[in-house]
């Protein structure tokens, strides 16, 4: 009798804040012994305490049986503790649930309304398919209870049971319909809620209820129910377009008259999402003028997203995004407002504004939007950007100014066209400084990785939409992508690499610019060293290497290109990336040779020999590398060979360099022919990208029948009749010796008849000469 009550437990926990875990352990032991007692009060107090401990994260499954015992208690207070425990810790496989069937049945039929209500609630939460099947009828019986308090709970319970026992829906549906006429508004509201939930999976089935719901919508004052009905209509109108016309009137009425913001919002949302704004009938607004329904909605929506209340702004932007997707012309003039929302300190609002604004991108607005988003990425407080160390950081205030100022003209803004190649990378020195002037303080919304990822994706999406319909300047786009490599702060390397490749390959004019930027990327040591850790920088550099290799003839070649494409971190990249680098290096090398052969002299000859020698040394280092070996380079048992595609390319390269080395072994006045022609390996034919669907578009030639077999049917080799042994002669013997080398005699004979083996004239002639197996003397 001196067991601790729940209050005692809580007080004890508060007193023992420092050794909470120990105290809880002790309490759990006490509970375990209390729960075994036969006294129901003791048990129920123990269960009560367990309910509390469950909230703190302690598993209470071991007491499931005891929970059922307490559920069976005749006293209401104890009973509901048991039900609470059940709702918290039972799951679909809990075996003690079977024991509970009869007791729940008893409770559902109880005269005490409180017991019925607690049983309904508990059953709704723990229902399993078996329990649902067994107790469905009992729950249905409760639907007719005299008290509305019970009826409304029964409706929800039956909904949950139907989820586990779908066959019950047939029986439930008419009763559900009946409850819509129930005198008590709470019961009607519950019925509407249940119908809304059911209609989410299968709206068509509930279309017949539409007239009744329509009537309820016009007559009720219960805002919660009205909201539910309005939301339900949003899912019904797509399947029944005539409904839109009927709803047009009442909805516009509600929109103009209601004072509840929540209801107004839902009406506008439904009008947009259910495409009721598509109905061309005009409505009269609150001052009696006739305007288009869509206009009315757009106007009312302004109240939301321009409101001072953040919540209203948020929901306003959500619906604005929906409206933008369906009727962009109504939203176009809101560009400025949404742009302002993009600066909001609230991350949720920013994300919503981002989705609206990326839908609004057009040729005119594109670079303003992108500029704004980029400046958000750069001016983050906690993400550290890596300033480039390889280029002189000429302070390029013009560029950083263009990022910050709102009034800068919307023309070309980023790096790009500067002749010296000074770019954002160098301007970043000044941007890093200007960042200090930015908002000081803790992490802002721009630091959230989800937001940054969304921003990068939005920028890329806006520019690339509809095959670059919005872009007027591709060089600017490439520059933006390169900037994103540095400023993103999240793992978008794959995306950026793909986009760079896409635009470089498709747009011929931008290739030269692109290659120039790629060279800058590859020569940035910091970036390259980051790539050795893998991840997004490696993927971008891989693409950069490919582009460099493929289009290097567009730029003046330099001997450093080759070294750049075989960076020291190469062996730490993955197989495919390594292969790309090596292949690009070969292309760059041969290109440089061809270039240099144009002005051949002794110095050039020495340079060629030097570069060739150093490249050979690098290659042999790489070939000797084993991935996963020990530090001292000794091949350990865990070392694996270089991936095949890498080692084969490396060997090609080695052969090429050897050939060049041989060709240049003596100084000559003219460049060796080899140097001039090696690059032809890669430029003999221009290969254009082929679309994925291209293969299927190739027409089959006339008369091609792919289904008929090429030759006759393949014989079963066991039934081959060997030809009679030929007369043994000297000639055939020597030929025989020659023919013994490959395969077996029987195999050869089988091949003669086999459909897919090409008939070599020689063989058929010989086969006849071969002596038979039976002739071999045993």
């Amino acid at each position: 009798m001196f067991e601790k009550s729940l209050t005692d437990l809580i007080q004890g926990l508060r007193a023992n804040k420092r050794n909470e875990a120990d105290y809880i352990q002790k309490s759990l032991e006490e509970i375990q012994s209390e729960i075994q007692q036969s006294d129901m009060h003791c048990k129920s107090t123990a269960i009560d305490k367990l309910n509390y401990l469950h909230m703190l994260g302690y598993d209470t499954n071991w007491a499931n049986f005891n929970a059922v015992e307490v559920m069976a208690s005749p006293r209401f207070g104890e009973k509901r503790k048991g039900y609470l425990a059940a709702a918290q810790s039972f799951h679909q496989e809990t075996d003690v649930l079977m024991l509970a069937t009869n007791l729940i049945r008893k409770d559902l039929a109880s005269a005490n309304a409180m017991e019925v209500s607690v049983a309904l609630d508990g059953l709704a939460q723990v229902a399993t398919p078996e329990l649902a099947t067994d107790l469905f009828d009992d729950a249905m019986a409760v639907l007719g209870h005299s008290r509305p308090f019970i009826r409304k709970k029964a409706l929800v319970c039956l909904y949950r049971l139907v989820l586990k026992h779908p066959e019950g829906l047939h029986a439930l549906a008419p009763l559900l319909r009946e409850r819509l006429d129930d005198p008590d508004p709470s019961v009607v509201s519950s019925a509407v809620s249940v119908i809304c939930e059911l209609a989410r999976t299968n709206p068509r089935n509930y279309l017949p209820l539409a007239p009744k719901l329509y009537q309820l919508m016009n007559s009720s004052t219960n805002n919660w129910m009205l909201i539910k009905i309005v939301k339900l209509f949003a899912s019904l109108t797509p399947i029944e377009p005539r409904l839109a016309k009927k709803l047009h009137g009442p909805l516009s009425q509600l929109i103009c008259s209601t004072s509840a913001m929540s209801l107004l919002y839902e009406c506008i949302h439904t009008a947009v999402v259910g495409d009721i704004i598509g109905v061309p009938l005009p409505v009269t607004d609150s001052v009696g003028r006739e305007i288009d329904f869509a206009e009315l909605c757009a106007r009312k929506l302004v109240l939301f997203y321009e409101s001072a209340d953040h919540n209203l702004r948020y929901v306003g932007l959500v619906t604005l995004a929906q409206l933008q997707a369906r009727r962009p012309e109504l939203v176009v003039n809101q560009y400025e407002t949404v742009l302002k929302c993009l600066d909001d300190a609230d991350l949720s609002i920013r994300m919503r504004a981002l989705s609206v604004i990326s839908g609004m991108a057009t040729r005119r607005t594109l670079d303003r939007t992108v500029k704004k988003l980029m400046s958000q990425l750069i001016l983050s407080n906690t993400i550290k950007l890596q300033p480039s160390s390889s280029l002189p950081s000429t302070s390029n205030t013009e560029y950083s100014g263009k990022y910050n100022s709102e009034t800068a003209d919307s023309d070309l803004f980023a790096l790009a066209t500067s002749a010296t190649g000074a770019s954002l990378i160098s301007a970043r020195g000044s941007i890093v400084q200007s960042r200090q002037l930015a908002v000081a303080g803790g992490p802002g919304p721009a630091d959230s990785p989800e937001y940054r990822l969304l921003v990068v994706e939005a920028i890329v999406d806006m520019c690339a939409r509809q095959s670059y319909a919005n872009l007027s300047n591709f060089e600017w786009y490439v520059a933006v992508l390169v900037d994103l490599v540095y400023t993103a702060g999240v793992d978008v390397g794959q995306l950026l690499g793909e986009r760079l490749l896409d635009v470089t390959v498709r747009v011929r004019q931008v290739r030269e610019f692109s290659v120039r930027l790629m060279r800058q990327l590859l020569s940035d040591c910091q970036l390259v060293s980051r790539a050795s850790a893998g991840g997004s920088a490696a993927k971008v550099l891989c693409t950069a290497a490919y582009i460099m290799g493929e289009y290097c003839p567009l730029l003046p070649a330099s001997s450093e290109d080759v070294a750049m494409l075989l960076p020291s971190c190469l062996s730490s990249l993955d197989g495919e990336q390594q292969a790309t680098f090596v292949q690009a290096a070969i292309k760059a090398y041969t290109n440089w040779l061809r270039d240099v052969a144009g002005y051949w002299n002794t110095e050039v000859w020495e340079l060629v020999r030097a570069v060739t020698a150093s490249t050979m040394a690098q290659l042999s280092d790489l070939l000797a590398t084993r991935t996963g070996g020990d530090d001292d380079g000794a091949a350990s048992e865990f070392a694996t060979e270089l991936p095949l595609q890498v080692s084969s390319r490396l060997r090609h390269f080695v052969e090429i360099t050897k050939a060049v080395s041989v060709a240049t072994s003596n100084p000559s006045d003219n460049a060796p022919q080899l140097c001039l022609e090696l690059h032809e390996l890669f430029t003999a034919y221009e290969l254009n990208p082929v679309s994925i669907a291209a293969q299927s578009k190739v027409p089959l030639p006339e008369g091609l029948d792919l289904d008929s077999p090429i030759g006759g049917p393949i014989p079963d080799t066991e039934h081959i009749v060997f030809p009679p042994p030929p007369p043994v002669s000297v000639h055939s013997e020597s030929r025989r010796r020659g023919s013994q080398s490959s395969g077996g005699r029987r195999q050869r004979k089988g091949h003669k008849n086999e459909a897919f083996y090409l008939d070599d004239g020689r063989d058929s002639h010989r086969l006849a000469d071969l002596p038979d197996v039976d002739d071999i003397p045993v």
Partner: protein
Amino acid sequence: MIKSVLIFNQLGKPRLIKFYEQIGTTQQQEILREIHALVAKRPDTQCNFLEGCQSMGSSSSDSSHRIIYRHYATLYFVFVVDSSESELGILDLIQVFVEALDRVFENVCELDLIFHFDEIHYILMEVVEAGMVIETNLTEISRAVNEAKQQIKPASEHSRL
């Protein structure tokens, strides 16, 4: 449908956790921790809709989970709902729930929630059953709660020996 109702204080200590989907205890605690971390960062001037929670699904508004919360004194009341619920409606519902607590406890404060945690559950049961809202009228809610209390009082007199 309402997926879950959470009440916790500024330090993240739970005062009530109720999940209307059957998920394991560890996962429940993880969700609680993540939502607390996200919510505690937001000042009161920001909107009451949370995005960016990963353990309950993606952060876009098209996904099925929305997190709607209100901050009262030292407590956060969080409702996790799916797309069938109206966001502004749920905000009103949280207000109704808190007012119901206020009626039952008379000027409810965190201490009441700590010591009468089971009663909070039973009050919540009158508003939300198995994830669906069954009552939004304050009078009805407090009437039902009082009726249940009447049943307990005489029973507790018997149980003490």
